[in-house]
């Protein structure tokens, strides 16, 4: 079967687009998810056009072989891992920005375009593409749409699904469909575009996307506030939101993370700090001045020590602490399991307390940063992948974190998706009815189950 498959693919694509060597295949057995054992695919294809994607899917369809769509492989829930052999289909090479329509404030891109590149190109026209996951410099548009990536600007600007207005998708039966378009408003039939955003490669292969761009803000103000207690920090967040100010960024960094950052970068963070907020407001210069003053006052009223950036250099320095969080984790521990349990904003203090309790009860180090403004927290379990006992504790703790988030009216994942890593818990969030609907949708679009098998739809 495997030989026939490879011959067929080699007949449909150029030789260089079909990778079969063991050393090549091993490089597609993983994504960025910690502790998700990969499986080596049978073959990797690097199509360069929709037509070639269609040919690959047809070959897979005729043989009932799995196809795993892949972008930059930076997914954090196992979404890009070839769970049971078959074809990894990388769209990384389809990286043309087909149109940047300034008048209609939108862009048409191929799936391999790096998010940052699109945002940079938009910036040349005073526009921006807001979704900015941590992997923004490497993640692809196709991958981030399939995963519905979020980012630091989510509170004010929303996430990927709020920007995708059109898609071209190759379906499991090889059919190519074009959905939506450039218009912001579009209620022509079902929201089929929305069906594919966040579908994690289980319903079709995205081969083109039309996305909205928005005017880039004229001004911004950045500040950090250091608090001696977590409670003061979270009450400050609540007070900012109650004041009807919506910062572009409202990031929370916990005491464990601050300690690790200090060990790593010696940035001079106060040793007694229990929490740090990184806040950025943007908009018109007048609004920014007014809102920044308000945010600063609120933080001071909650006993925060505030530092406000006077210029771009100072802004970079303030952001450095937040950017150092992940490297600090990585240098502290060989394994970092990043979760993204999300709760309604008002329940963040309870969620933080629950995470602390869970860490303590399992003797684990769990460091948390989070997008406090939108309730999306990133508790990160620091582990040693070779320590089986520790890993078992880590997985139990993660299950308890999911349970706590759901009990607080939240959800399993704010922006990383379910993939294979969170699949066992999907029923907790969706219930039997939700699971059943998910499977019916999957069965309708991919009756053979060839698209990204082994993930949450099974």
């Amino acid at each position, binding site marked *: 079967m495997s030989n026939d498959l490879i011959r067929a693919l080699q007949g449909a694509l150029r030789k260089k687009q079909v*990778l079969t*060597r*063991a*050393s*090549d295949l*091993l*490089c*597609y*057995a*993983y*994504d*960025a998810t*910690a502790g998700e054992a990969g499986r080596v695919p049978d073959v*990797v294809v*690097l199509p360069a056009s929709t037509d070639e994607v269609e040919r690959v899917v047809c070959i897979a369809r005729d043989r009932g072989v799995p196809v795993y769509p892949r972008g*930059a*492989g*930076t997914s954090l829930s196992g979404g890009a891992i070839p769970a049971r052999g078959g074809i990894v289909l*990388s769209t*990384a*090479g389809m*990286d043309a920005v087909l149109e940047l329509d300034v008048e209609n404030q939108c862009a048409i891109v191929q799936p*391999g375009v*790096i998010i*940052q590149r699109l945002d940079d190109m938009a910036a040349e026209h005073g526009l921006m593409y807001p979704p900015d996951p941590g*992997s923004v*410099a*490497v993640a692809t548009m196709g991958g981030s749409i399939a995963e519905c990536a979020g980012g630091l600007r989510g509170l004010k600007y929303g996430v990927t699904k709020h920007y995708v207005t059109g898609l071209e998708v190759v379906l499991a039966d090889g059919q190519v469909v074009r959905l939506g378009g450039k218009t912001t408003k579009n209620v022509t039939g079902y929201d089929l575009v929305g069906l594919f955003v966040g579908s994690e490669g289980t319903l079709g292969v995205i081969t083109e996307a039309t996305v909205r761009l928005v005017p880039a803000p004229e001004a911004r103000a950045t500040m950090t506030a250091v608090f001696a207690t977590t409670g003061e920090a979270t009450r400050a967040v609540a007070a900012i939101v109650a004041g009807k100010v919506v910062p572009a960024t409202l990031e929370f960094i916990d005491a464990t993370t601050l300690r690790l950052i200090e060990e790593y970068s010696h940035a001079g963070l106060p040793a007694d700090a229990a929490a740090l907020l990184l806040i950025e407001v943007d908009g018109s210069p007048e609004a920014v001045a007014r809102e920044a003053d308000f945010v600063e006052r609120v933080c001071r009223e909650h006993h925060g020590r505030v530092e406000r950036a006077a210029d771009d250099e100072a802004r970079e320095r303030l952001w450095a602490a937040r950017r150092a969080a*992940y*490297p600090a984790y*990585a*240098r502290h521990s*060989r*394994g*970092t399991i990043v979760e993204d349990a999300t709760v309604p904003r008002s329940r963040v203090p309870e969620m933080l307390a629950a995470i602390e309790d869970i860490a303590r009860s399992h003797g684990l180090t769990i460091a948390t940063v989070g997008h406090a403004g939108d309730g999306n927290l990133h508790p990160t379990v620091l582990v040693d992948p070779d320590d089986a006992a520790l890993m078992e504790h880590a997985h139990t703790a993660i299950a308890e974190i999911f349970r706590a988030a759901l009990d607080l009216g939240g959800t399993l994942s704010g922006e990383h998706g379910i993939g294979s890593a969170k699949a066992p818990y999907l029923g907790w969030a969706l219930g039997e009815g939700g699971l059943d609907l998910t499977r019916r949708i999957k069965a309708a679009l991919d009756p053979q189950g060839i698209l990204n098998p082994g993930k949450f739809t099974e």
Partner: protein
Amino acid sequence: MSADGPPGDLPTIRAVADAVAICNRCGSCQAVCPVYAETHAEPGVARGKVQLAAAVLSGDLLVDRDTAAAFATCTTCMACEEACPSGVPVVDIVNAARAQVVEARGLPWVKRVVFGGVKRPGMLRAAAEAAARLQGAAFKPAPDRELRRLRFPYGLAARRAYPPLAARPFTHPGAQKKAGAGSRVLLFPGCMVTYVYPGIGDASVEVLERAGVEVVTPPEAACCGVPLEAHGDLAGATELARLQLDQLEGMEFDALVAACPTCTSSFVHRYPRLLAGEPRYAARAQALAARSYDITSYLVDVLHVGPPAGPLEATVTYHDPCHLARGLGVTRQPRELLASIPGVTLSEMREPSRCCGGAGSFSLTHQELSLAIGARKAADIVATGAEVVATSCPGCRMQLADVLAQAGDSRPVVHTVELLAAANKGAAR
């Protein structure tokens, strides 16, 4: 020499096992890898190579030809190391893997013959001189610049334009003893300067002597060993490290200076590492490392040289060599030197420290990739509109001249010290 086989003991790659384990596969290296930007394929990027090293260590991947090819496809530009949140020493891993390949499979015969010659300075010199005399037969002058193309098209090699080997290799007659002379510098020329760009050597001597420094050169123009280590010949590279220390033993100098950052990083980083376990050499390698400098950093940081004598009216753009910018942390000094030349205006290119794709013999073994990486660099250079391209590495200079020629561009590419020397002479380039 064994055939493809089970991993067995694999001591060389086992030595970097801890480094391999710290990669958490975040993929940040994709943003900066010059190879990945061309291939869009995971085996090209650091994350892929580190995972392949892990697979070799776990026994999931044989040390075979394909594995060797995967590890060979890297310019060792170190951009991934700079971008890595976890601080994975990728180049150490790649070099260890290449050495493991050679240990397990032996060197291919061509490399065995070539490196055997490179290890003997006399043979290297004789071969280079003979080649310089005979090259007219093999190469024809390229029409556009002082480069040559192969007369007999040999695959992609036919597309490349190489500078001719120098008719006269670089030599320096030795110090002219000056009364009350300041410090004494050992100028390490390296192969590229000796046999391809003796003008860089002459210019180095000129600017150093002008700064009141006495210049001496090593007895033999022997190779620093990087080309051998890059191809996994760790034993040969270590042999050359010993040879260098031996030939410099007993020579008196205050500092070792080179105009090739790859040579400099050999003295600063590689020799102390390669010779760490050898009591006869370890301390000497450490001591020499502490007084080895790239020429631009020596001129600026130690000699505090003033501006050159004559003006040189030109817009100059500067390319940062990987092994100088990331390997030795030197980016400010060459710019200060260039900006100090009266009449020179610096015009920065986009991503000046992005790899030019030269990477020593990578430009020969991976010509298509090397040219594709270089084409981006050429476009960035052309976009500046600068009249002259400066860099601080003979290898980069060769690649930049080639890729600009490929792009039909004829602006000159020079080493930073050559512009300084030209300005000193008060003569335009």
